């Protein structure tokens, strides 16, 4: 007996681009980036426990151009994942589900994450930490 033909959902490519799906994928990507950032945090703590010598070596790596670039990336990933995570938690509570609210909070999450990243690094620079 031939298999019954069942209705299928449209292929992924059929869907029109909206801000929502990009933000959703960005939440995942920043989550993956932050998982790697956890490794960096762990590395920092272990170097600190290892004494002044190992801490200096780690600090030099973090202060290298690639290190700074990664840290700025992780700062943005952190703030975005935090803000968008709060957005998701609100949805779980049934809040902010309207189309206009979703768009507004989505743009807010992206722009506020960019702003907070800028603010954090300007603060570090202003206080002479970098």
């Amino acid at each position, binding site marked *: 007996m031939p298999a019954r033909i069942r209705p299928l959902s449209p292929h992924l490519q059929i869907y029109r681009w909206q801000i929502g799906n990009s933000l959703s994928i960005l939440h995942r990507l920043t989550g993956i980036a932050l998982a790697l950032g*956890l*490794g960096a*945090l*762990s590395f920092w*703590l272990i170097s*600190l426990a290892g*004494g002044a010598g190992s801490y*200096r070596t780690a600090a030099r790596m973090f202060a290298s151009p690639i290190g700074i670039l990664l840290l700025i990336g992780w700062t943005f990933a952190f703030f975005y994942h935090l803000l968008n995570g709060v957005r998701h*938690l609100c949805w779980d509570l049934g809040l902010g589900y309207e189309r206009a609210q979703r768009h507004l909070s989505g743009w807010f999450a992206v722009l506020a994450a960019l702003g907070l990243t800028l603010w954090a690094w300007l*603060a570090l620079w202003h206080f002479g930490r970098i």
Partner: protein
Amino acid sequence: MGSAGHGTGQWWAQRVSAVALIPLCLWFVCSLLAMPALDFGAAQTWLALPRNGFLAALLVAVLAYHSYLGTVEVVEDWVHGTAMKLALLLLLRFAYVLIGGASLYAILRVAFGIQVS
């Protein structure tokens, strides 16, 4: 829920750890920005304070748990093939226990002032 009776377990744990991470992460970011310097002496003095050591240990533990749940979800969604999926899930489990354990051990060493000469 579900035939196993705990189908919502991971979903729920992810949300609970997310809520716990909000204050812990904000505390950590504010602490980093408020530290007088980011050199060895300042970092050691900061982490050696009981309150900071305790909160840092909590942060690392909850962070590792939340991150583990998230990456497991990504592997379950995006990786096809049972063997590859199982291998990656096993690898993730080992990696997170290793990273979490090493971080906690490092925090304890600083907290109890164990110095390598």
